[in-house]
């Protein structure tokens, strides 16, 4: 129980600092905004065309009459038009995914690497080490505190993303973003975005753990981030997809995504809606995704163990 309080204390202090410091906040905001923009670029560019098409259909009595005979109201036109843009939005993920990896791994570790050296450069480390907290709890508190900061700030670009998407859909089609698209992006943020974020911030903290000044830790953080890009791509790349770069979690989510709106359209037109990753794309099971999470967890725990040994050897902590 006492250990949990100690971890909480370190995390809370780190969280307070994280919010007041520029680095992790700006990095998280910037990376999130860049990735969100990369996803929205294509769908928003096609929005006015879809809107014009919808208006054209809505003004065509022949088409309306034909579909009315089948028992569909005008709303179905709006929903299918919205569905096509929604599909396009989800389909932007494979094209934009590398931006996510690149921005978070290039910027975030460099920003979070100062977390431990900050205690040394402020002259607080010796005092902290004289308290009964263990090195492991101290590291855990640091990661948790930075994680809370980054996670909380990460909600801002996520909220902006949904806000822009919802606003655009209401403006163009007078209907909101389809629920399955909202669900997809929530799952994507949680199951792929969060591990990437978690890895980026933790690897930065661990890389910086051996340095005494905050400035000295930035470059090693950057290097750790660059190496992480190669590690991630080598360890978690799913079966080959032309022109796309994804990891297992993202692949799995896209593979299992189905647009209910476009399924409806497929039933109407008689042409089946193609799978998100294309016909004949290899199928992966959930076990591949679980292995990915296990590798992430084991790697981070091993690196944390090394950092812990370093603190013990160098600072008797």
């Amino acid at each position, binding site marked *: *129980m*006492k250990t949990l*309080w*100690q971890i*909480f*204390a*370190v995390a*809370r*202090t780190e969280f*307070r*600092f994280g919010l*007041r410091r520029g680095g992790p906040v700006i990095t998280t905001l910037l990376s999130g905004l860049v990735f969100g923009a990369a996803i929205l670029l294509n769908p928003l560019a096609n929005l006015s065309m879809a809107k014009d098409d919808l208006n054209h259909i809505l003004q065509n009595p022949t088409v309306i009459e034909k579909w009315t005979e089948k028992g569909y109201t005008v709303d179905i036109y709006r929903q299918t038009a919205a569905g096509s843009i929604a599909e396009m939005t989800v389909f932007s993920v494979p094209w934009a995914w590398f931006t996510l990896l690149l921005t978070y791994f290039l910027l975030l570790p460099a920003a979070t690497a100062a977390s431990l050296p900050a205690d040394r*450069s*402020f*002259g*607080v480390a*010796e*005092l*902290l*080490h*004289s*308290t*009964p*907290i*263990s090195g492991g709890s101290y590291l855990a508190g640091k990661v948790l505190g930075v994680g809370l900061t980054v996670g909380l700030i990460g909600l801002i670009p996520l909220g902006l993303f949904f806000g822009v998407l919802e606003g655009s859909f209401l403006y163009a089609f007078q209907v909101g973003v389809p629920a399955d698209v909202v669900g997809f992006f929530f799952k994507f943020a949680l199951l792929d975005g969060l591990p990437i974020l978690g890895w980026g911030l933790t690897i930065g903290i661990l890389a910086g753990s051996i340095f005494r000044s905050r400035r000295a830790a930035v470059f090693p953080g950057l290097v750790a981030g660059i190496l992480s890009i190669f590690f991630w791509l080598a360890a978690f790349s799913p079966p080959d997809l032309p022109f796309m770069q994804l990891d297992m979690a993202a692949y799995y989510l896209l593979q299992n995504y189905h647009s209910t709106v476009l399924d409806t359209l497929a039933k109407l037109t008689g042409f089946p809606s193609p799978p998100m990753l294309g016909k004949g794309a290899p199928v992966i099971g959930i076990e591949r995704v679980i292995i990915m999470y296990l590798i992430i967890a084991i790697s981070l725990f091993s690196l944390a163990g090394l950092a812990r040994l370093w603190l013990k050897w160098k*600072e*008797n*902590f």
Partner: protein
Amino acid sequence: MIIVSQLTKTYGKKVQALRGVDMEIGSGMFGLVGPNGAGKTTLMRILAGLLRPTIGKVSVLGNDVTTGRGKKAVKELLGYLPQELGLYPDLSALEFLEYVALLKGVTDKVDRKKQLEEILELAGLTQDARRRLRTYSGGMKRRVGIAQALLGKPQLLIVDEPTSGLDPEERVRLRNLLAEMSAHCTVILSTHIVEDVSQSCNDLAVINLGQVLFRGSAGDLIAQARGHVWNLATSCERPEASLTVVSTMQLENSVHYRVVGNPPGTSKAVSVEPSLEDGYIWLMQKSRIQG
């Protein structure tokens, strides 16, 4: 009880900070005096479990600090003020002290609040408790340092150069506070300012170049210097080079010196009763002569 035996600490291959130190420290207030670079901070850091000794044994309140378990047990009982204490500039004193309290295991909210209120009052920081630490003066920061050391009701209080940078009034206040604390726990005061020790510690040790030069009471140290402290009034000439000048007072027609050393070769010298500072200077002078 703290027992140090044959304690040696070497940094790298060349710098020997402690050389076979043997010492026993009982309850109450203990003063560790020595010049800068004597090895005081190294000894304090070893006692606090922050440094591993190269050779030797250290038992603090029955715990061997060279083992992981012993080190943890000592930290549970410890209040520590490092020589160079930094504070988070963006936290308030209250936030910082609450942080340390939690790290020390004061998890009960009511107890924590009570301790924080008492300690802030004791340190004279109640009015400024919610101000950011970046706005504090050097003396106030030092008081925050003392306050954090007192959190968690420690059984052992190690304070390393606590009065450096404090004004005279704050120094007196701090010395009194430490003396009060020594009624409930062992207090080890490390300093190069002899006056701090003379006002509060009867039990003390003098350390230089990693070795204990003296271990005993303040009275014993003073007694060693008896017959070696002189008042000397001259018209212009300086005292012999072999004497250490403790104080110089320039009067209208003469200069009055207080010197420490073997009897000066002038009849104008008058033997005077030594102070603790004189005793310390005489000891250092003897150790230099003996090489």
